[in-house]
């Protein structure tokens, strides 16, 4: 049998899908090869994210060990690189406990509901030239829609566990997610404005100048917002181990805990991938026609390293500081960025509505000045606002007062 994917099919532009479909289509009936190609792509995606998460869990533990001036996991394999495998075996063999009062069905759905958005995001990210699994023309919106499910998963985890600490962690986690969603979305609008498209492939090809330079403020807001949404250390109020033990995943053990951890580590990689695509010009670089994937992976590595660096360096915020940071610092910055970008695009674009490289450089110059000014001004403002009236904390004590 010879199956042909017509140009009208939405998966026609997905190269990987077409290759598998054509290959399998010689032996199998068409509808079956359609399903096989889909399943093969799913397999690649899920395993890619999970293997990446395993690798990153080891890399991050080593890195944070270095940052903390200790060694980190170094027993299993060269430099301890088999540690994720050992962890996996340990977690698979552990008893999978469900608390007595838990809502069994929802409790069991949660790990899947947490991992699924992480994997799904990768479906629209282009790894190299023309290799996005699905080049949606609303790709940016797709990422936002898919990741918004995470907050429900967190709520379900907290509620189903029948544990006060889990519920506290979940309510904090959801509050953080919905607060930081606002500045993150606003900062993405700036990128979409400059690129003139919501398709990730178009955004990559629009970046003759990386949007990190054109949209520094958006990158800053997006980076901070994402790192809060990922529940990583400066913002990990949801699982603050000194207050809530582990937050919403306190009751999870065994395979379910492994899946939740994989989702957390995988989320760092997928958010890095999204950021690489939106701000660091994706797969482009020298020889990008052949080495696009290498550039892509390298840029992900750099961003993931910065994520680990931030996690290892900053102390945890208080919950009011966390909220103030979102609403009084990031949100104004993202609104200013959106307005400035809109004005710049309005005045700089040519009659066809496109921006050329010179325009992008001009925008980069203006926006960098704006970014520094705004961060300085709002940084000073928020420092006064955040200072609590109640009992003094370490941040407010000057050496003279610290009695």
């Amino acid at each position: 049998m010879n199956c042909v994917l017509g140009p009208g099919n939405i998966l026609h532009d997905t190269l990987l899908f077409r290759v598998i479909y054509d290959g399998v289509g010689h032996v199998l009936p068409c509808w079956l090869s359609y399903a096989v190609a889909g399943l093969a792509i799913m397999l690649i995606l899920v395993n890619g994210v999970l293997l990446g998460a395993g690798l990153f869990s080891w890399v991050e533990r080593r890195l944070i060990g270095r940052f903390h001036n200790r060694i980190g996991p170094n027993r299993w394999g060269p430099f301890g690189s088999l540690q994720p495998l050992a962890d996996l075996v340990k977690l698979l063999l552990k008893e999978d406990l469900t608390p007595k009062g838990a809502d069994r069905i929802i409790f069991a759905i949660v790990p899947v509901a947490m991992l699924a958005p992480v994997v799904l995001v990768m479906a629209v990210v282009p790894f190299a030239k023309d290799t996005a699994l699905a080049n949606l023309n609303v790709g940016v919106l797709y990422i936002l829609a898919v990741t918004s499910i995470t907050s429900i998963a967190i709520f379900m985890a907290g509620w189903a566990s029948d544990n006060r600490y889990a519920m506290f962690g979940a309510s904090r986690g959801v509050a953080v997610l919905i607060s930081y969603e606002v500045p993150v979305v606003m900062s993405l609008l700036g990128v979409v404005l400059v690129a003139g498209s919501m398709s990730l492939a178009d955004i990559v090809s629009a970046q003759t100048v990386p949007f990190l330079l054109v949209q520094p403020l958006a990158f800053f807001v997006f980076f901070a917002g994402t790192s809060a949404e990922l529940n990583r250390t400066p913002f990990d109020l949801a699982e603050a181990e000194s207050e809530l033990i582990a937050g919403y995943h306190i009751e999870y053990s065994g395979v379910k805990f492994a899946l939740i951890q994989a989702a957390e580590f995988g989320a760092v990689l997928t958010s890095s991938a999204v950021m690489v695509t939106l701000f660091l010009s994706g797969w482009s670089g020298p020889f990008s026609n052949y080495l696009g994937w290498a550039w892509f992976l390298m840029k992900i590595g750099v961003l993931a390293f910065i994520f680990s660096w931030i996690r290892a360096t900053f102390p945890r915020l208080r919950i009011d500081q966390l909220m103030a940071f979102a609403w009084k610092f990031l949100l104004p910055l993202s609104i200013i960025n959106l307005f400035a970008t809109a004005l710049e695009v309005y005045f700089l674009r040519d009659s066809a509505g496109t921006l050329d490289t010179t325009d992008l450089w001009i925008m980069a110059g203006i926006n960098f000045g704006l970014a520094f000014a705004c961060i300085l001004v709002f940084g000073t403002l928020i420092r006064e606002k955040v200072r609590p009236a109640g009992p003094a904390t370490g941040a407010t004590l000057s050496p003279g007062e610290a009695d």
Partner: protein
Amino acid sequence: MAWFIFILLAVLTIGGALGVVVTRNVVHAALALLVSLIAVAGVYLVLFAEFLALVQVLIYGGAIIIVLLFAIMLTRSSDYPRVTDNKQWPLAALASLAFLGVLAPSFIINSVEGTEAQNASFTGIGESLFTTWAVPFEIASLVLLVALIGAIIIARSDDGEEQG
């Protein structure tokens, strides 16, 4: 193929909606509503309205359900974990029957010619939203703004002092 997917989505939509009404647990009801709403997004996808589908997931899945869950969590629903209906159910039944009474004739009388599903561009949606339908759009935003301000005022009036 499309038929099969549509039937699947329809079953999910109706099953979720039934779950909302039938289940005895409020949180289960909210999550069943989520299933139903996301299945509706799937129906949009079958119709090639990607933008609408994603907005459906984003607004209803990400925002509305979370608000619902927060409302359940912050009210004292734990005192009545198994109560999902009250004396007003005949009124609710009447209201939904009336709604059906409006919907069903409008479908029967005003039979729309089926067109080929087309890939609706979101730029077209944006342009018509901000030109032809600008006034309804602004009114909707105004309603939302009023609701927001009202929520802030209600939240502030009780414990605004001690929270600072």
